[in-house]
C-alpha cells in the first residue's frame, strides 16, 4: 500500500505555518461560536 510504504518525513516549512494558522482560526471559531451553533442545531431539530 502506497501510504504504508511511504517513509518520507518532511521538514517544517511554510505549509506548517499555514496549517497552524488554519487550526488556530478553526479552534478559535469553535470556541467563539460552538455553543451558538449547537443552539441553532437544537432549535432546527426541535422544529422538525
Amino acid at each position: 500500500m502506497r501510504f504504508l510504504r511511504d517513509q518520507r518525513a518532511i521538514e517544517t516549512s511554510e505549509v506548517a505555518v499555514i496549517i497552524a494558522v488554519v487550526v488556530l482560526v478553526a479552534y478559535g471559531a469553535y470556541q467563539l461560536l460552538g455553543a451558538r451553533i449547537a443552539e441553532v442545531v437544537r432549535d432546527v431539530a426541535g422544529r422538525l
Partner: protein
Amino acid sequence: MGYPLLPTQVIPIAFLLAWLGTCVLFDLRTRQVPTLLTIIPLILAAAWRLFQGGWQLVLLTVALTLLSDLPQAKWRVPLGCCTAIIGLSIAGSPDEVYAMFVIFAVLALWEIGATGGADAKIIIALVLLFANGLLFIPIVLIGGVQGLVALIAQRKTIPYTVAITLGTAAWLWLGVVR
C-alpha cells in the same frame, strides 16, 4: 485539562516518548523514518483502539488507507470525503469526531504532498492510541513555530517529527490523558 497522570501511565508514556525520540533520530539523520518504526506502532494503536471499542476510528483509517491506493486522484478525493462523512456519522463520541477530523486531515495533507508518510502514520497512530483529535493542536502549533523559525532563518532544517514529539509531550504534560 487537569487530569493528572497516574503512576501506571508513566511506563507506557515513557515507551511512547522513547518511540517518538527514536523516530526523531532517524528523521534527523536520513529525513526518513523506517516503515517498521511507523507501521508496528500504527497496528498496535489500532489494536488498542479496537480493544477499547473505538472500531469506528480504525475502520475510517483502514478505509482511507485503502482508498489512497486508487490509481486516479479524481476518485480518491471524492471517495475519501464521502468515507469521512460516513465515518463522522457513526462516531461514538465528540472526541471521536475530532479524532476522525484529524485522521482525514492528515491523510488529505499526505495526499497533496504537504506531509510525509512517516509523519502521517505517526500522527494517526497517536490519534488512534488516545482517540482524541485535540492532540493535533499542540503538534500543529509547535510545527507552526518551527515553520516560522525555518522561514526566518531561510533554512528547512527542522524535521516535523520534532513538532510531533514536543506536541505530544506538551499535551501529556498538560494532563489531558484520561
